[in-house]
């Protein structure tokens, strides 16, 4: 056995190796410390969903500004890289590929159910990011099938659940009608919603399906009148044909209360219903921009940043960015790498989390959704949706 004999060559080589290793090590550490965390987005800034997409885009940007101004996540800024998709699945996938070709993406915002379903197998294959988005499709609320996906609110069936629980409490045994569009979006909560209504001892007296955005609904209104429901829930529309439905129903002397789900609930959208808006109700997971009840420091902050009314789409983008980055923060706090499964575990560790009052109650995300919401009712005098119930947690 030969003993180690230091000589000049060995000392130089050893020193160089140590210096190299240190440089490499420090280099990595500093890159890690300052390297931005990327939030990518397929955002519908044009096309049929632009009414929400523009707000979503602004909401994400504003939350990230607040976060980055406060030092980012463990010293790392969050970089937002988005592309317009015009709400088309092929353009959304193109945007996903483009952004992922340019950046190391950890968090992603997707614009539609179709895109989420298309890209989830790729998310699973990559295992590098988690995704949320504009879709509240019930199908996506399945952590086994979509392990890296979540939604910043209740899924459509859970929205129906919140509405039906409210109805059961207000008027036990009430007669309920569902009016929905003949689309994947419209049909989403109908079967499970009907089962839940039965469970709550509510009678589903009519189910009416219409083309999306249909104009002439007179025969459907007659059908609704014959059923004479106490509550009518619309789903799968943004606006048309809801105003026409309500106007004709009121003209026929119907006394049904009319309700909607999240994407119908923007205050300016409801205002566009005109006279039909009076008394219109629906489910909202977040407080409205103008809500003053309870403590909501994050809403105060938003109002400081943007003195004008911000849409529900804005709030959805804002909250989604908050939850995505919270997942990243928890992952880094746990000393783990930002991989998809680690990020999802970080997200699922969220328990009784305060969103600064955006959700009216502390939230937990044990699965892929946040099953919380409150019923709001339109007050024509105030021209605002006003709270009509406490926060309902499923």
């Amino acid at each position, binding site marked *: 056995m030969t003993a180690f004999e230091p000589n000049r060559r060995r000392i130089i080589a050893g020193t160089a190796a140590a210096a190299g290793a240190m440089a490499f090590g420090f280099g990595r550490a500093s890159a890690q410390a300052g390297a931005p965390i990327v939030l990518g987005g397929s955002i519908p800034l044009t096309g049929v969903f632009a009414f929400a997409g523009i707000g979503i885009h602004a909401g994400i940007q504003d939350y990230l500004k607040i976060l980055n101004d406060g030092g980012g996540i463990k010293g790392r800024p969050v970089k937002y890289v988005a592309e*317009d998709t015009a709400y088309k699945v092929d353009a959304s996938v*193109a945007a996903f590929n483009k952004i992922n070709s340019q950046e190391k993406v950890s968090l992603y915002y997707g614009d539609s159910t179709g895109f989420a379903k298309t890209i989830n197998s790729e998310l699973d294959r990559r295992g590098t990011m988690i995704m949320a988005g504009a879709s509240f499709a019930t199908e996506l609320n399945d952590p086994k099938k979509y392990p890296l996906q979540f939604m910043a609110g209740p899924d459509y069936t859970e929205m129906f659940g919140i509405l039906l629980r409210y109805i059961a409490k207000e008027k036990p045994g009430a007669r309920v009608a569902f009016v929905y569009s003949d689309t994947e979006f419209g*049909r989403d909560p109908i079967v499970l919603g009907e089962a839940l209504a039965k469970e709550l001892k509510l009678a589903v007296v009519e189910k009416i399906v219409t083309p999306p955005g249909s104009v002439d609904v007179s025969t459907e209104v007659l059908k609704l009148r014959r059923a004479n429901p106490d509550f009518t829930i619309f789903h799968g529309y943004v606006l048309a044909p809801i105003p026409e439905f309500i106007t004709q129903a009121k003209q026929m002397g119907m006394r049904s209360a009319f309700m909607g789900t999240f994407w119908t609930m923007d205050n300016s959208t409801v205002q566009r219903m005109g006279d039909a808006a009076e008394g219109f109700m629906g489910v909202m997971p977040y407080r409205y921009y103008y809500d003053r009840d309870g403590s909501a420091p994050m809403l105060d902050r938003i109002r400081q940043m943007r003195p004008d009314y911000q849409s529900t789409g804005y709030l959805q983008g804002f909250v989604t960015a908050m939850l995505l980055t919270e997942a990243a923060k928890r992952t880094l706090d746990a000393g783990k790498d930002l991989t998809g499964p680690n990020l999802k575990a970080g997200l699922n560790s969220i328990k009784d989390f305060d969103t600064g009052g955006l959700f009216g109650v502390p939230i937990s995300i044990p699965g892929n959704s946040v099953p919380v919401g409150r019923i709001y009712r339109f007050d024509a005098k105030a021209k605002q949706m006003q709270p009509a119930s406490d926060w309902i947690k499923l």
Partner: protein
Amino acid sequence: MRIGTLKTSYAADEALFDTALQRGLLVALLVAAVVFPFVASPYWLFLACLCAINVASATGLNLLTGYTGLVSLGQAAFMSVGAYTVAVLEIRLGTPFALNLLIGAGLAAAIGILVGIPSLRVKGLYLAIATIAASVILHFLFSHWTLTGEARGLSMPPARLFGIAIDQPFSLYWLIMPVTMLMVLGAANLLRTRIGRAFIAVRDRDISAEVLGIPLLRTKLTSFAISSFYAGLAGGLWAYFFRVVTPESFPLDNSIFYLAAIIVGGMGTILGGILGAVFMTLVPELLKFGANWLTPIYPDALSALAPVRTIVFGALIVGFLIFEPRGLVEIWVRIRRFFHLWPFRT
């Protein structure tokens, strides 16, 4: 200056590419197509595959509308037949992808024949409306049939070859691009046959064609069948590409897209269909780079320029229709003519 093409054999006379330059360009194109996936990012590969699918479908529509003169707004619906067939076969039977694609295309062709039956009695806008009606029926069927997953549609596994999944833009490129090239080559050759000549005769004057002994119904239905076969095959490729097929995957907008593609590219020319489909697919994407380049100067260029981009795209289409009514292919024809006649000018 080229003064003529001397042909000394029937083989030379029948050749699709009859000059050395054409053959050289073709070889260069093939080499580029082979090298491309090794140098391009997944984003560009994705766009190349999307272009190829759209070229395949637009070529089919070009045979029907550009060459036979039958206006159809049912191309997306025929694609959906191919896509759903492929998805059902892949999910339920797990049959090989090549067989699935052929069955999907065959079924689309059969439905195309059915939809084409009114073409003997109605033409122009009336036929377009008839094809829209067929699209609505197919959409209703797919969104209410349990086999096709109703409104939720179908999520399918990837195509497999020798147990290897073809699920990435790189591997999909090697499936989609060769199939599209074969389809385009097939269409170009078809037009030199009796069937293709009959299509053109029917387009130019159907009564004269019938007087010449061309059976109108059979020719029109053949055109519908071939066009739908192309659409079905393109739809099948689309299904393997996205792996989710829903009733909303193939809206009427898509049929208008393909019609616009062949009009912008140049109806009644194979190259026109290719150029139009590539233009309509790539230009909206390329316009996005404007916002990307401006972002360092103007941070929210993306949202500010999004509507501008849509207007620019629309204006480009209108501009081409006004200044190049024969389509993009005419630009290529002029370039060729310039070099053919050089040093003289037209």
